[in-house]
């Protein structure tokens, strides 16, 4: 039974996507939405059934299905195979449930768009690709999903293709992630060449048994890390994600919450045994995660575009996940991934609802006072914002962030054999990040919903959009109680499900760690209230006049740097390459031959004509000369004869 359900979970959205693409826009819009949402809903139901089956089973054996052998050669083999263990179970639940709610929301949001079939086709394909990614038990099969989500994000970001900026953003996303994919492919090749298979179980066994040399493990881990960083928009690949806002809002919600950016986190969590064996990669990961979370939080603090604030906040939150992964607590990363999926989907969908009602205005400084006109929306945004900030006890984000922070405190990151980076430093930065998170999201909340009314909101949010918002609001608030720090209450459902053999305990944690983590968001909230919340706000106008703020707003100048370091040289190379040099050379050789030929021809004709002319002239002149000698005078003749005779005699005598 589970063996039959597992492929069906992928097949359902995939076949919906095929039908939608084949219908080529001839299907009525109502049925399009129904089909897409229904197919993802079916997947969600199957995921829940599978969850019950997997967790109720007495043995903790994962469900494995090998569909067929993909490639087989003497040195390598790959299978199309799925495996459901607690890790992938969490992922499929997040992907299908959040995906289903986003689809439900999109039915109404995208109503009336002429390309609705293309939209839902890409969305369901996105879900299918993500499900392949998280269910595969073979890394090469995972790579299908990995590239598949990249392709779907390209299609969806550039969905409104009539605006060149959108397609440029779509291409940027694809190119940057493709660079990471190439690195990941190198990692896969290295593994495949060393082990001969990319079956995840076999790989982890090989790593634990020490069959792979430490160099190969480190190399693979670094290659895969680059792939994961690109997919999850971490430094130095973060530039594609803020631009990816160009797509329709449900797409942004899907990319940021359920699919795509979480793929990198999932990959590292899935291969955590391999990464644990490569300490260099772990340190790099933790440091990059910390830097990213701080940098992105600062950028989010100075944005004026509602969706861009959320985009930078996603990068920042992914930084927390990478910090957790680098620390080795992949369970904490996954927990944060789950709660982040709830509140980020909620924030995006709410933002979409706000933007739709204020006539497609995205600048928060042109909104204001929306609390009165849309209290329901404000409520759900508040739920999402509190969860993102991690307000203590009452939100899901608090528990997951707390789990990460408490683990980082104890960790130690070796840099070289003598030096190591203390976890305390990263912990401190992460707490500052938590303060900034709370500051920027409540800044946004107060500016949008408080203060004087600046832009009239029209209409009301339809029921079909309100239901998903309510569901995710509930999850954002209460989704975190599955894992509670020991200081409060010993609930460890989540980590125990992922790792039944027992996870770390934090009984020896000093209590002030927890209090510091809980205080940071509250301080952020208070500061935000002081600055932007009261009716006479301290900072009302758009920030960004000083150079440092402008730099931060534009994403720390990475785009400009890449433009100079990568894009322009590449354009220059292209400019050089607009003519094939080798082709030029062959053409040159051809024309040289032709010229030589022509020259030779001319030379030959020239010589010939010269020679013949001279011959004619000489003949004529000789003729004249000879004619002159034959003048009929006998004395001349006699004189010639005597001269000749003398010469002959002289030569005969003298020689």
């Amino acid at each position, binding site marked *: 039974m589970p063996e039959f359900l597992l492929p069906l979970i992928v097949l359902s959205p995939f076949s919906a996507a095929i039908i939608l*693409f084949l219908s*080529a*826009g001839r299907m009525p819009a109502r049925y399009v939405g129904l089909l897409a949402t229904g197919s993802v809903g079916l997947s969600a139901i199957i995921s829940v059934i599978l969850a019950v089956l997997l967790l109720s089973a007495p043995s903790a054996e994962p469900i494995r299905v090998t569909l*067929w*052998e*993909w*490639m*087989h*050669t*003497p*040195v*390598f083999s790959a299978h*199309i195979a799925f495996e459901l263990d607690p890790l992938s179970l969490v992922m499929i639940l997040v992907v299908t449930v959040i995906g289903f709610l986003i689809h439900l929301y999109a039915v109404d949001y995208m109503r009336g768009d002429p390309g609705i079939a293309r939209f839902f086709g890409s969305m369901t394909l996105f879900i299918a690709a993500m499900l392949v990614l998280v269910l595969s038990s073979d890394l*090469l099969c995972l*790579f*299908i999903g*990995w*590239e*598949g989500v990249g*392709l779907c994000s*390209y299609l969806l970001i*550039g969905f409104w*293709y*009539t*605006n*060149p900026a959108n*397609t440029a953003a779509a*291409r940027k996303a*694809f*190119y940057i992630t*493709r*660079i990471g*994919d*190439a*690195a990941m*492919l*190198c990692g896969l*090749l*290295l593994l*495949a*060449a060393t082990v001969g298979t990319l079956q995840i179980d076999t790989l982890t066994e090989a790593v634990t048994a020490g069959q792979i040399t430490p160099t190969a493990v480190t190399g693979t881990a670094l290659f895969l890390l680059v792939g994961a960083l690109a997919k999850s928009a971490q430094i130095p690949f973060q530039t594609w994600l803020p631009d990816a806002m160009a797509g329709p809002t449900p797409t942004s919600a899907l990319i940021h919450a359920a699919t795509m950016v979480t793929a990198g986190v999932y990959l590292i969590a899935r291969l955590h045994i391999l990464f644990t064996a490569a300490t260099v990669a772990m340190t790099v990961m933790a440091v990059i995660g910390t830097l990213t979370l701080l940098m992105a939080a600062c950028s989010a603090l100075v944005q004026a575009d509602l969706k861009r604030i959320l985009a930078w906040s996603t990068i920042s939150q992914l930084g927390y996940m990478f910090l957790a992964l680098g620390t080795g607590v992949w369970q904490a990363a996954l927990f944060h991934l789950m709660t982040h999926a709830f509140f980020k989907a909620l924030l995006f969908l709410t933002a979409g609802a706000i933007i739709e009602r204020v006539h497609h205005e995205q600048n928060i400084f042109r909104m204001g006072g929306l609390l009165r006109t849309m209290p329901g929306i404000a409520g759900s945004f508040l739920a999402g914002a509190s969860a993102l900030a991690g307000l203590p006890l009452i939100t899901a984000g608090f528990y997951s962030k707390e789990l990460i922070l408490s683990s980082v405190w104890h960790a130690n990151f070796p840099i070289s054999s003598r030096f190591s980076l203390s976890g305390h430093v990263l912990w401190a930065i992460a707490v500052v990040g938590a303060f900034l998170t709370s500051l920027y999201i409540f800044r946004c909340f107060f500016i949008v919903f408080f203060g004087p009314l600046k832009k009239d909101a029209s209409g009301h949010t339809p029921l079909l959009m309100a239901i998903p918002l309510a569901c995710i609001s509930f999850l954002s608030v209460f989704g975190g109680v599955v894992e509670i720090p020991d200081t409060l209450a010993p609930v460890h459902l989540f980590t125990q499900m992922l790792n039944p053999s027992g996870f770390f305990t934090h009984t020896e944690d000093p209590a002030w760690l927890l209090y510091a983590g809980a205080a940071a968001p509250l301080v952020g909230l208070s500061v935000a209230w002081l600055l932007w919340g009261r009716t006479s706000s301290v900072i009302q106008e758009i920030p960004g006049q000083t150079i440092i703020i402008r730099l931060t707003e534009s994403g720390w100048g990475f785009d400009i740097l890449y433009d100079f370091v990568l894009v322009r040289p*590449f354009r220059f*190379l*292209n*400019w*050089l*390459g*607009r003519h*094939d040099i*080798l*082709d030029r*050379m*062959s*053409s040159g050789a051809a024309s040289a031959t032709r010229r030589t030929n022509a020259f030779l021809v001319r030379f030959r004709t020239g010589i010939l004509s010269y020679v013949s002319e001279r011959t004619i002239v000489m003949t004529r002149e000789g003729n004249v000369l000879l004619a002159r000698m034959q003048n009929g005078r006998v004395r001349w003749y006699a004189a010639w004869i005597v001269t000749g005779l003398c010469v002959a005699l002289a030569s005969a005598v003298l020689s």
Partner: protein
Amino acid sequence: MSPLPALVLVPALGGAIAWLVDRPRFVGARKITDASWRVTLMALVLETLILVLATFRRPAHPGPWLDHFTAPWIPSMGISIRLDMDGLSLSLLWLTIILSFPCVLLATRQIRVNAGAFHFLLLATITGIIGTFLATDLFLFFFFWELMLVPMFVLISAWGHEGRHRAAIKFFLFTQGSGLLMLLSILGLVVAHFHETGVLTFDYFTLAATRLSPSLSMVLMLGFFIAFAVKLPVVPVHVWLPDAHTQAPTAGSVLLAGILLKTGGYGMIRFNIMLFPEAAERFAPIAMALGVAGILYGAWMSCAQNDVKRLIAYSSISHLGFVLLGIFSGSRTGMQGAIIQMIAHGLSTGALFLIAGSIQDRLHTRDMHQIGGLWTSMPRLSGAGLFFAVASLGMPGLGNFAGEFLVLIATWHVSPAAAVLTTAGLVLAAIYSLRMVNRIFLAPERADQQPVTDFPARHMIILGSIMIFLVVLGLYPQPFMTFSTPSPLSITAEPDKVESPP
């Protein structure tokens, strides 16, 4: 009775009939405008039936070679008509047939000027290709090698686009010149064999047993290699390809990119690797370096083009670099990857040329600056274009990726650095493919856009079947990999198996 000679003869005869029926005298007053097209289609259907027969016929002899045919031709010089078929030939024959159909169905019906001659030449090229894939007598092989060249030359120079004469002459000079080198190598091999055994023969299996000094075998191998390298093409000698592909009529481009180039890869496997294994092994580092250079150079050039067909042509050079890399990687994995890549490239690039040709028919330009936003007016054609562009950038799950990945694994075993460089080619592939998609399909519609008609549904069925082939090849390449492995020489090298019953 072996179906092999029929496989070679049917297209040739069909072409002759197609030419004849187009003459007004022949049909009389009641002239059908597309008579030659119909005849061509019938010839292809007949050819398919014969190929089905050849595929499912029980092999006359146990062994990897599926079918044999021999008949004397010029006995005094040891030349015979000898055709043999193994899995490799059969896969490439199927590719030929599968691509000939879209070619004829989508691209040649609208030919009005001298349609009979056009179809004759098209079928003559196909005859040459099929003969090349089957011939195992070296003289006969050379004959077919030249046979596919001449009609293609005429096709380009008579039915091509604006710069056709130059392109055709370039094509002819490069392939003809390298073909002469191959002839010298063949003669050298035959003479060496004659000196050793006193038997004058052009038979592939007999010649394979010739003992050669290392330097002589290297020289002879290089003669073959240069001819195949020009055809494949390998980078320094690729310059004929972009011009020929761009200027050829659509059907010609599809044949060139889809099948004709594969004769180069086929020749490398059958003649370089299997006739001169030691020399090929010594030459392998250079060949692999050329392969990597081709992948990067082709991709780089492709990024810089503004002409759709030139862009696709350069991307072919990049893709066929993988074939060269795989063939000379010295392992079975690489060889299988190269074969999968040849088939997948034939399908995806052939389809892209069909689409580019249709765009040119409708808009009368190939300049990507002049085309834009076709998705609004032609969703079907654009969707298909997107699919094949994505296939050609190496999306996992489609045929090209399977081939590229196998080649990369084989390369990694030889030189990880080369494999890492090659993956950079994959990034460039994304850039040129998406650049094309963006310029042509996903862009704001141009204001001066003439009204255009989308692909009709029946055309989409044809493209759809190519898509299905690519998906099957990408997700389940195993049968092709097992099946299309070239057969070893030793099985049929014994003379007693040569006398196959008539």
